[in-house]
């Protein structure tokens, strides 16, 4: 798996790659008419390559419609990938391509990888009690005998700071923060090693958001969890992650350690994004500038570099040739023609 030039080439032996995503693609067909002829594809995730080390948090940032949620779902096999591979390192078997999994193997993967959803108001079934909601992954994946289920549920609820007296209550009886704790308890009950958190706090107030973020960091320390943290809130991503990836129109524009991304971003899109963040300090006016125009259409992305119509440093080559992810520093990859040799490769 180290043969690809963009595969992680870390010299440090102590870092084990838990998840290695290679050229992952997820296209949704656009169907039309009675015969459902395929008119084209929405390229939600288009050749995304990255990896996550065991125990770290990688943030995935981007604007609405950039494909970050689809990327998270595809990595978890919640959606079948159109192309590419996702190698997950199992504790006992080593790295295996999970996109090929089905049946029993998929269940095994689900015991390793779980998801925390964005909206705790719609991700919990209002007709199920907290006990049934939290127990569901256990029951479906048949990973423990029925007699132990209740104990595991109570244990999982304790871990996230919920009172086990609430076991028989329904979701409506809980506040937003408590619901998100239920959602986390449900994800943790199968003792996974990898969690995809899709905007876990964007539906919550700041004081509650702080509680959930602290909880997620405590759990990571306690259980050695690995997170893929998806959010559009850059300050939250910076707080949580070690490395951050920036997505634009289904493609990864830049990925690197958070200090590099936030303090010395290379890609013009990342730079524009950083300029757009309002800073909580009236004496530090952030320009409130951002790239002009709007995000393109993933069904018909601009030619070459998807960002070129909004880019202030656009060159001729950007309109024609799609930039590949190239390494500009250790652990820092950028897909932009401004860096490195403009490759002759064309899509």
């Amino acid at each position, binding site marked *: 798996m180290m043969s690809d030039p963009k595969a992680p080439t870390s010299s440090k032996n102590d870092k084990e790659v838990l998840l290695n995503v290679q050229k992952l693609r997820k296209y949704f067909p656009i169907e039309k008419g009675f015969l459902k002829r395929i008119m084209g594809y929405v390229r939600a995730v288009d050749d995304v390559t990255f990896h996550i080390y065991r125990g770290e948090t990688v943030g995935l940032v981007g*604007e*609405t419609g950039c494909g970050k949620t689809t990327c998270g779902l595809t990595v978890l096999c919640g959606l079948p990938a159109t192309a590419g591979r996702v190698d997950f390192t199992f504790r006992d078997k080593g790295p295996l391509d999970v996109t090929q999994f089905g049946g029993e193997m998929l269940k095994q993967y689900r015991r390793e990888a779980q998801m925390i959803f964005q909206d705790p108001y719609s991700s919990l079934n209002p007709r199920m009690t907290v006990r049934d909601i939290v127990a569901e992954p256990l029951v479906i994946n048949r990973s423990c005998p029925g007699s132990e289920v209740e104990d595991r549920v109570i244990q999982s609820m304790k871990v996230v700071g919920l009172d086990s007296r609430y076991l028989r209550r329904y979701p409506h009886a809980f*506040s937003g*923060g408590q619901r998100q704790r239920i959602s986390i308890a449900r994800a943790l009950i199968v003792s996974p090693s990898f969690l995809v958190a899709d905007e876990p706090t964007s539906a919550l*107030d*700041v*004081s*509650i*958001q*702080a*509680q959930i*973020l*602290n909880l997620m*960091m405590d759990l990571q320390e306690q259980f050695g969890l690995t997170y893929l943290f998806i959010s*559009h809130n*850059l*300050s*939250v991503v*910076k*707080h949580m992650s070690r490395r951050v990836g920036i997505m634009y129109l289904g493609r990864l524009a830049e990925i690197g350690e*958070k*200090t590099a991304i*936030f*303090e010395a971003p290379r890609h013009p899109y990342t730079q*524009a*994004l950083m*300029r*757009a*963040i*309002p*800073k*909580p*300090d*009236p*004496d*530090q*006016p*952030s*320009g*409130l*500038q*951002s*790239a002009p125009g*709007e*995000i393109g259409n993933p069904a018909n992305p601009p030619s070459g570099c998807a960002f070129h119509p909004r880019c202030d440093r656009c060159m001729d080559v950007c309109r024609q040739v799609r930039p590949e992810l190239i390494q500009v520093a250790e652990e820092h990859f950028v897909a932009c023609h401004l860096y490195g040799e403009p490759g002759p490769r064309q899509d």
Partner: protein
Amino acid sequence: MEREVVLSVKDLKTYFFLPHGVLKAVDGISFDVHKGELVGLVGESGCGKSITARSILNIVRSPGRPTGEVWFYRDGEATNLLDLKPDGAEIRRTRGDLVTMVFQEPMNAFSMVHTIGHQIMEGLLLHRKISKEEARAQTIKLLENVGMSNPGQRIDEYPFQLSGGMRQRAMIAMAIATNPHLLICDEPTTALDVSVQAQILSLLKDLQAQYGMAIIFITHDLAVIAQIAERVIVMYLGKIVEEAPVREIFHAPLHPYTLKLMAAVPDVQLGEGDRRRLQTIEGFVPEPIDLPQQCVFFNRCGEAWERCGTSMPDMVEVSPGHFVRCFKYGDHGDGGRAE
């Protein structure tokens, strides 16, 4: 500070009369807004900031009922909006002309079956004596002013044909069409991405400078407030707990709630190795029904005194323009600002 006052809210109370009790969504708030001023109204969900906005316009739905005084000033003439019939002809002359509102989710605020041009023109035709052709020409100009590309074509499009950012621009165009004295923005950028948010915020600042209107900007996002507001009002559980110029709120906040709110936000400016724990505010906001006579923040404060549990502190002015509702500051014998 000698600026002309355009809006003066005095002891505004909006109670909802529910079967199981009286919900005090807004409980006795007072503040002024001056000409050309941008006032930020901050607080978490359920603190009453949106209801405050709706009460100012007198558009609170039953069973809610606003009482108190909401004075609008025009050419030395004062009107109390809460005295007028909420659906009368008189109040309509004020709403849409003197004061307009930008809502959080433009998809729900627009009518889906009319073009945006039609909806923007509606206000112009209602409040100005102009012909349809003139109104249309003005609307195209407005759309251009709010940064819409190709306004001549966009004017005939329906809300669903526009992206979120463009819809919010159309909403703003509608709100500024009559050149109001006061614009109330209720979380105008919460549903938008950061780069679109930046575009909308700088647009609002430009418009404010251009037209000299006052803006009440409601949000839960402290960073946005820091960037655009001149004066900040912090609300908690239907009461104003602190009010100060923006620099003082961010550099010298006083109320325990303001302090905790600031500490709970992850700071994008912190460098490596600052992966500290975020401060949290224990507990949650109680429902404002049958609250005991005590400080609104008593249960979550952490530094409450005995006195905080038995009586409500008054607003006191600790420095010019900086008011706080907490027993820790000022003299609470009789020196408090009357509410």
